[in-house]
């Protein structure tokens, strides 16, 4: 049963897209730039350069965006009502972290229709760490009636570099929140566009086929030989770009010229690794060494970013 009755199809409790638009508007009103998803496959919204790279350096930054997250291992051929290999995260990054970030987060829940006099919202310890990004932070899983609906993190280190100042990161699990506010048990039953009858489009209408096909791909058909090659190529390309972007010795402009393209290759390597992992062709020991290889790229990209204008180099 919907939490709030409203005929507006863009009411956040009626449609998936309404939820998304509400969150965008909420954070836009609080000074964030609203970005669009990064046009590459990533495992989490954190990989977007608007978070990973912008979290580094002294410059203030406020951004919010939706990011599709690809988790090849979580594919369930469209048969599990809660698990998807492709889902949406809504990502907010505020640098430096404002003193009332918890309250802002709670206000945003209220904005999307969560009645805080009715629902039990809790901040439960969850130390976040991304071995591939060389990043960690402290924060919580945010629980609504026992369900994790968001991640809340104060970044302490990214790409092996101490954050100064610290950024606050909020990651909303959009499908889960939408299921919650729409009162739906199965993700594929979510109302996507908020219309009824013939005009109604469900989440399943949009994504069920994709979940089935990509599960097949991730677990059965992804060509591992090609993937191994892609990984090496991306790694080599990242390193080459990092080297090519370095300022020449003695140049009066010490800035790095190719930090962002190099980081794209790092993202690519990370996703290919996730696919290989889903195919079960990486042993435990190898796994560690792959993670290390991606981390080395991320660290080098972070170091390069700090030598750019965005990284506060001048």
């Amino acid at each position, binding site marked *: 049963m919907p939490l709030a009755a409203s005929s507006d199809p863009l009411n956040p409790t009626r449609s998936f897209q309404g939820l998304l638009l509400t969150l965008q508007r909420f954070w836009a009103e609080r000074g964030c730039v609203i970005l669009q998803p990064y046009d590459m496959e990533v495992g989490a919204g954190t990989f977007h350069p608007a978070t990973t790279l912008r979290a580094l350096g002294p410059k203030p930054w406020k951004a919010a965006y939706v990011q599709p997250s690809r988790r090849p291992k979580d594919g369930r051929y469209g048969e*599990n009502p*809660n698990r998807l290999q492709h889902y949406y995260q809504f990502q907010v990054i505020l640098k*430096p972290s404002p003193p009332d970030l918890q309250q802002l987060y709670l206000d945003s829940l209220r904005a999307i229709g969560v009645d805080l006099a009715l*629902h*039990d919202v*809790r901040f439960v*310890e969850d130390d976040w760490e991304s071995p591939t990004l060389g990043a960690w932070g402290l924060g919580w899983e945010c629980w609504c009636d*026992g*369900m994790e609906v968001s991640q809340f993190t104060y970044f302490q280190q990214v790409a092996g570099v101490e954050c100064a100042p610290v950024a*606050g990161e909020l990651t909303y699990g959009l499908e889960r929140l939408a299921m919650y506010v729409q009162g739906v048990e199965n993700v594929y039953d979510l109302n996507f566009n908020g219309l009824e009858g013939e005009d109604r489009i469900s989440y399943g209408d949009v994504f069920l086929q994709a979940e089935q096909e990509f599960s097949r791909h991730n677990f059965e058909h992804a060509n591992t030989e090609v993937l191994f090659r892609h990984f090496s190529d991306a790694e080599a390309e990242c390193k080459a770009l990092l080297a090519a972007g370095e300022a020449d010795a003695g140049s009066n402009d010490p800035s790095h010229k190719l930090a962002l393209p190099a980081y794209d290759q790092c993202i690519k390597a990370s996703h290919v690794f996730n696919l290989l992992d889903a195919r079960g062709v990486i042993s435990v020991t190898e796994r560690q060494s792959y993670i290390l290889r991606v981390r080395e790229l991320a660290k080098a990209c972070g170091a390069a970013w700090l030598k750019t204008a965005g990284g506060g180099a001048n």
Partner: protein
Amino acid sequence: MPDLLLELFSEEIPARMQRKAAEDLKKLVTDALVERGLTYEGAKAFATPRRLALTIAGLPVRGRDVREERKGPRVGAPDAAVQGFLKAAGLASLAEATIISDPKKGDSYVALIEKPGQETVAAIAEIVPAVIRAFPWPKSMRWGKASSESGSLRWVRPLHSILCTFGAETEDPEIVTFDVDGIKSGNVTYGHRFHAPGPITVKRFDDYVASLERAKVVLDADRRKEIIATDAKNLAFAAGLELVEDEGLLEEVAGLVEWPVVLLGDFEERFLEIPGEAIRATIRANQKCFVLRDPNSGELANRFIPVSNLIASDGGLAITAGNGRVVRARLSDAAYFWQTDRGALPDLDTLKDSAEKLGLDLAKPLDQRMAKLDRLGVVFHAKLGTQGERVQRIAALAKELAPIVGADPALAERAAKLAKADLPTEMVGEFPELQGLMGRKYAELQGENASVAAAIEEHYKPLGPSDRVPTDPVSVAVALADKLDTLVGFWAIDEKPTGSKDPYALRRAALGVIRLVVENGVRLSLLRLLGPLMEQAIAISNSEASQDALGEMLESSIPKAIDLLSFFHDRLKVMLRDQGARHDLVDAVLGEGASGNDDLLLITRRVAALSRFLETEDGKSLLAGYKRAANILKAEEKKDGEGAFAGKADLQLIADAGLIEEKALAVALAQATPKAEAAVAAEDYEGAMTALAELRPAVDAFFDKVTVNDPDPRLRANRLKLLNQLREATRAVADFSRIAG
């Protein structure tokens, strides 16, 4: 006398850190106060998810004045000494010093230093900021604008406000003012995040607790626990069920709420086909909810207990429904795992080699998982090979041990081959704490022998000094094989435990071996077993080495095996000590040649017999006689040289010139010694002790009447020989010199 109230109000503190943090706060602040001479009557610390609080009662208003006398140089000492004295004592000139006279040493300077006691408020204003800055959080963080600068304040999560008041009960307390990174201390706190978020002005501890309670915050974690436990039991009882008590979960949940509200939810009965342990694991780990059982059958019920932090406007219906939805989603996952794990794996063809190598039947699901574990090449330890290789070794060893522990070798081998097969299952991947247990369930489902299935679960046991020791011979064989393989492996690569570091839990493994052997009465010559195993492990860990190099390394196998054996001896001592037994008796029983004593069961039996013997009057008296004899011998051997009194006493000489007590001892020794030796050889330690006990009257009488150091050198030497014979006789049973007391 005034009281101190301190509250540090922050964003949510991890539940697992709260109790220790409260205690740390109390200790650090009170220690610092006491160090400044500010003693107090009582202190108590509290923690909720959002605050640490401390109350210290009965502090003085100011510290005592301190009078200190500092001795200086004698009058007329060199200038350097005088200057040093003035500087150290803080005096401007010698005019401020006093001169004291001593008849022996002459006149010297003394400085009388008077320090007025510090105002307690001032001391607190110094102490608290220092404690906050150096607080021992397991993990701490920086935040906000201030984090641009290095050295900014760290706290477990952002710290928002500090309340600090000091004053007597009869007056309005004052705010102890200080500033920590821009956070100014005050007299304001905040209530429950949703029910009473506004500021609350506080005077002292009494009204603080009462105001918080009105603002829906229960300050005391133990009271929150009590509320949760009581309400949960009542809800369970009302539903005709019983709470599955869980102290760890209770402690955690009490750290997640400031105002506990206990609810009751349910899930579909069909989920009860999932093993109860798995249901409990997922509801506990992921949802932090309690589970309930049927008090008659003991089976899990389809109910659960969430603890919320909110007095919801609908009485908690939405919260219960929401929790139920997540529980169902989790249980759907668990059901999926439970089903998947019992089905066939894809790509069975790729597992053929592994199956053949390990002798597995790919028609069976658990066999497939073991083959997959081998195929994946999951590394156990970089130097000790893969899990698959390890399982092969354990299987061979379990088979070898089987006849010794009375198990069927084929069953022991089979159980060992499946012991780790649940590691790649979905269920264990999700809930690692279910390893072993899930293996057992899956083994039962594929029709394994009951002992084999039990051994899969039990081979990890015993996990500690209080854990149950398996008794089924098949379990014993696999449990021993698993632990011995681990121990030998890490000994071979010199990764032994050091100090507090024991990352591979080798002490636990050794204790496990000891308890398995002792409690099951297993006779095992450890050294004979460890030698070849050590050679094998050294060869595995140096598989790249040349033939010659390897040959050299293998020479260390026996010393390493002996070293491992003495590790067992050490653990045995620790075990006996922890059981309240006398661990010095282990040394006495082991004697000099510890390496010869490699049968742990016999050692413990011998220790037990010796311990009982030493409790008796005969034992105590004989030990005293032994000590006396040994002391005399030691003194006399110093004069005459080591071994001067070896050999048997001259009986003819005793008959001619000796005393009757001397003769009696000689006769008693001649009878008791062979009896004791024979009994030890027959592993009859009680018998050996009885034989020794027979010596007691003769020994007592000897020391009573006979003077050892007779003026006649022949008589002296002969009597010392008798004492030496006594020493030798006891040695047959134990080295009495190693017995304390």
